[in-house]
Each structure stands twice: as structure tokens, then as C-alpha cells.
């Protein structure tokens, strides 16, 4: 699948405020095309710097989507992102819950 959205290279406390509107825009966009797709796919390969604040923003996006019955799909997460998710016990961000698709 072609990812229409992509994460920036830096997702840290210094960029979190800048990226909040972008995430909100994605959320709105995904709501408009709800019938089409219940997954918001985001290209995550560019991330080279992330901290807990950046990760928290992704969790927030994921929670917002889940609340609306959709989910976040991080496509080809960079090693830095994967490591950070595992380190903070947020590996669920990386998993693709295939079961849901099957249902």
C-alpha cells in the first residue's frame, strides 16, 4: 500500500508541538475516508531521532484513532523508532493486529 503520510526525521520534545497539528490533520482526513479504510498508514522509515515526548505523540494519535474505531499502522519503522517503542513498553505501536483485519 502506498503511504500518503510520513513521519518526520525528528520526533522529539522540540518538534512535538509542531507535529501536533499535522497529526490532527491526519486524524481528520482519516475520519473523512472512514468508509474507505479503517487503518491510518504512516510511513515511519525516516525517523532518526525520537524521545519519549515524540513517542507519546504517536501513542496519542493511536489512541485517538482507536477511539474512532480505527488504528495506526506504522509502515517500515526505522530501527530508532522500533527500539524506542520496545524500550518504553509501547511495542504495540509496531504490531499489525492482523486478527482485526481477519474479522
Amino acid at each position, binding site marked *: 500500500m502506498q503511504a500518503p503520510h510520513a513521519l518526520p526525521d525528528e520526533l522529539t520534545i522540540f518538534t512535538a508541538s509542531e507535529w501536533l497539528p499535522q497529526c490532527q490533520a491526519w*486524524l481528520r482526513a482519516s475520519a473523512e475516508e472512514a468508509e474507505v479504510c479503517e487503518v491510518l498508514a504512516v510511513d515511519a522509515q525516516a525517523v532518526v531521532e525520537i524521545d519519549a*515526548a515524540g513517542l507519546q505523540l504517536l501513542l496519542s494519535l493511536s489512541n485517538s484513532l482507536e477511539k474512532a474505531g480505527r488504528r495506526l499502522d506504522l509502515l517500515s519503522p526505522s530501527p530508532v523508532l522500533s527500539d524506542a517503542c520496545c*524500550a518504553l513498553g509501547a511495542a504495540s505501536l509496531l504490531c499489525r493486529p492482523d486478527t482485526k483485519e481477519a474479522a
Partner: protein
Amino acid sequence: MTQESDDDIIREMLPAFLEEANEQSDALEQLMLELEADPGNQALLGALFRCAHTIKGSAGVFGLDRVVGFTHHVETLLDLMREGTIVLTPELSTLLLQSNDVIRMLVQGVHDDQIVAPQDLVLRLQQAAHMAPHSDTGQQDGSAKSVIEVFANSTTTGSVSWRVEVRFGVDTFRHGIDPLTLIAYVRSLGHIPDIVCDTPSVPTLDAIDPESCHLGLVFTLDTEASLEEITDAFKFAREDCELIITPERVHAASDAPPATQASQAAAPAARHQRTGATGGATGAGDDGGFIRVQADRLDDVINLLGELVIAGSGASALARQTQQRALMEANRHVTRLIEGIRNSTLKLRMVPIGDTFARFRRVVRDTAAELGKEVSLEIVGGETELDKAMVERIADPLMHLVRNALDHGLETAAQRQAAGKGPQGKLTLSACHEAGNVLIRIMDDGRGVQRDKVLQRAWDRGLITRGAVPSDAEILNLIFAPGFSTAEQVTNLSGRGVGMDVVRSNVEALRGSVTIASDTGQGSCIEIRLPLTLAIIDGFLVGVGQSKFILPLDSVAEVIANRSTEATFDSHGRSYFELRGQFLPLVNLRTLYALDAPPPKLSSVVVVRAGAHRYGVLVDALLGQHQTVIKPLGLMLRSLRGVSGSSILGTGEVALIFDTTSLGQLAANPQAMPSPPKLSVGATSPIDTPHLSERHP
């Protein structure tokens, strides 16, 4: 950008570090002194190690290599003591105290590259820790790496599984703390087999502030590190981190660490220790959460409150004039609330005096050693609270009195034994509340004041006429006269003749008083009485003619209302009256302050207690209790005796506030006992039983 921001954050946080490092250093000193009395106390040893460890750890974060390098040696030594490898000796204790001074010096001199730790002290620390001087010389390792090494070295038990729950505070990110880095650090302590983030607690995009932290983590940590070391890892997450660590299981068959639940708001350990230092035992307690408030903000509130109290009594007076019950009732309610706010606000400024007292442990220890005397210091009532400003300003006079007692009061062991006393002298610092005042006592069981020497010196110095022999109490009071010193041998501690008079003027500037009592050969006791606060008092309003005066309510012992006045007063308005068989001085304000209004037929006497003395004040009218906001006297009135301040009444009138001690001196007239008192007083409601037998000095 990140680098710049890091620098900014470090620059911003440095003052907080300096303050914390100083607190830790103070705590270290107190704990060290407590340890001297109880050398095997593991809790103290643990607390000491943590102090040094915290200083070193935080200094490492700020890249203060000199502090880290030196503290490392202290920490190593303390670690060996904690393990029981090294036992505390007096020499070691002195070495550690000196090292602590150096840490303090290095911390204060962080901006000055010239300030370095004395190499000989470093060598002595290394020797004490049985380290070859060449193997680990000086000022290297500074970063977190060395901290990790310490953790690895200091393991004494086997590997334990801990369940760690941590909830970061909202300001965690803003404080420059990244939980990701923190967990990476914790990971270096051992192994984290599982970690779960409390993802549902992260708000959705519409509700989130991306710069606030909403993260909570639960993980298992298999580590050989101790509970303290794990807790220490979260130290920099500071006040706003909730941390719960519980042991899951012990892997090795060695003895397990005390498996208790350590739940604490990971605040600087120094505060626990500081309270512990004055209260005795140290232990993990809940910090209760502190907010640092700038003192001037608090002062603004107190000033406004003063105005509110004045406005409130004005409104009450107006309400009374209208005679509308509902309005009066409403006003009474407002007054009660204002009183409540007043009390709570003044409490905000109250701090226990124990911290100040505790500082003297070191002074006593070092001074006694320097003078070759054995002295034990006892601190009583350290929890007594008084205004912060007062605590700060009383520290210097206390310091002088303590040094004086050590230098002049207490004898050497040989002198004491010759006098039939135990070799160790005893110095007691005590504080308690007494009738709206704080009473601070400095007691020693030394040789006492030698009155003949004092008298001789006073003659020599021309303080009194040669040959004149005043009463005992007056001789003692000569000590407070300017330019007085009895030291046979002028030491560098005291005895320069600057001191006791300065002590007295400092105390009096705080609206306090200082007195001395002494028994030759038995010791001396200096009493300092201070008001609780400098801002507001409960006053008792009295009227003489058109003038209004306020007596501090706490000093009013009883009131004898509406008696006919028959006493004759001298030109200073002084007389005596009888109260239940005792003669007390009586002062007539009308004569004393030359008030014009004609005397009424009936007057009242307010019996005032000032220290151990009582006296009567003759007034026309008793106007009741009054919340009094103390305003300083203007320049012109500052020399007015017997008065300490002024206050504005609700009606806009000005009332003078009496200083009961100096008014008492005006009332007392030891030279001339006047003609038999005529104002005889019948049954009153006694508040205290009179035990007056002294003559008034």
C-alpha cells in the same frame, strides 16, 4: 538546536542544583555529626552515602568534573564505611567533615576554575580508603559511567527481581528529563525482561499538550543493585514522579535486602534527612510535596493581609454603628475568616528553629576541639517554629552566644575535675513557645559569670563609678554593655569586646529581649525572647484620654476594671500597687507620656507580664481585643521609650504598640520605694498564681 537547548536547560537548572547540593552538603554534615554519637548506625551510613552520591550524580549531569572527582573519593570512603570495611574514627570523622567543606567550596566555586580540591585532602581520603595514591589519582572520571561503576561495585546481595511502577509528572519533559534516556539508564543497572507502557492513559490528540508528560510505566528489573540505587536512578525526575518499587523475588540464595515497599515522590533525599537530623531517626518518609515560593511574594500577601485586617476592622466598626444585626453578623463572619487567613498565611512563613540549632553541632565540635575542651551539645525543642526572617536574623547572635559559652563559660576537663564536675561540659540549646513569644535558652554548666571580675572590669572600663557595687542582676547586665570583655586571654573566638552588646541590640531590633542568669560555679543561662512574627499580633486596645494604645494580648495577665485611683505617682508616672498581697510596679501613662486629658473618676489597671516580671498599667478605658498590624515607628518616634510600633485602627486613628519589656523597665523604680500604695485591689479573676519575690532590676 538540541545542543543549544541542552545548554540553556543546564544554565537554567544550575541554581537549583547549587541549592540542592548545598542542602545535601548540610545534611551530610548533620548526619556525620549524628554518626559520631552512633558510629554503627546503618541508617545514618546509608543516608550519608546517598548524600554524597546525589551530589556527585547531579554534578555529573552538569559536567562539574571537579565536584564529581572530589566527591567520588568521599563517596568511596562512605561506601566502605557502609559495608563495614572501615570503622569510623574521630580522625576519619574530621577528615570527612573537612572534605564536606571542600565539596561545599567546590560547589560554590563552580564558575571559578581556580578553585580546586586540596591535593593533600584527596590523598588522605585515598589513604583512608586503602587506595594506593598512584592507582587512582585525582580528578578524572566524572560522568554517569562512574556512577554505574559504583552501582556495580557496591552490590552486597544477590540478584533480585523488582517490580517498578513509575508515573512521570506532567512537567517531566519541561524539566529536561526524557523517560527514554532514564529507562536506558535503569536498564544499565540490570535486566528488564518486560516493560509495559500505560498507553490508555495518554490523552487523545484533541486533549493532549505535547509538551506535558502523560506516561506511566510498569516493568520488572532484575538487578543486583540495592533499592536505594534503583530509587536514585529516578532522582532527576524529581518531585513530580510517583515511584513504587516492590520486590518480586530473590534469585540468589544470599540474604535479601529489606523487602519493603518503597513508595515515595522521588524528591531530594536531603529533605528527609534534614528533618531527620533534627528529629533524631532518619528514615524514608513521605515528603508531602513542597512548593518553593519566593519570600517577597509571600511578603506581598502578608502586606495585603495587613491592609485587609485594617479594612476589616473599619467595616466592623461601621457595621456596629448601623446597629443592623444582620450586617453585624455578616461582618463578624468576615472577621473570623480574615483571622483564619491571617493565621494560615503567617504559618507559611514559619520554619522550625531546629535547622539553625543543628548548625551549631559543627561549631561546638570544632570550637571545643580547638580550645581543648570536652563539650556535649544538647538540642531541645528544635521543632519550635518561628518566622523565617526571625530565624535568619537570630542565627548570628546565637552563634556568638554559643562561642562565648564555649570560650568563657565552659572550663577545660582538668578545671572541671578540680571543681568536682564531670570532665565533659554540657551546652544546651533549647527553644519553646511562651506566651506568644519564642524563648530560646543557651545554657552551660560551666564556671558561671564571675561577678567580681565583671565588676572589676566595669570599674576599669569606666562603665560604672569605681567602687560602686550594684545588685547582682545589674552586674550580670553589665556584660551586655558596649565594649565589655572579661577574657583573660583574648582568643580568636570571642573576647574582643564586640559581641554581647551587639547581641543585645540585634535581639532588641527583633522586638525581643535578652537576659542572663548565672550561678558561680554552676553555669549560666542566657534567655532570648522573640516575638513569633514581625507582622501582626493580637493586641489589647486601651484608651487614655483621646489616645489609644495596644498591649500585646499574650502579655496581659489580668485586668482590674473600674477602680478609683488614689495612688500617688512620681514625676515619671511611677507608683506601686498591691495585688493579692504583692506589690507590683504601676505606671501611669497619662503622666509618663504627658497626655493632656483630665483623669476620669474610675480607672482600670492592666496587669502585664514581661518575662518573669509583672507590672500594672493604669488606663482610662479598656477597649478590648484588636488584631494589630504592626507598622514601624517613624523616625521621630523611634526614640520613644516603651513603644515598639504603631498600628492604624479601623477608624483611621493611630495607636501606639507597647513594648512590654521596656515599658516594664519604665514602670519599675528600684531606687525609691514610694509612699504606701493606696490603690488597693480586691478579688480579681486570677490568671496565674503570683510568685513574685524578686526586686525589679
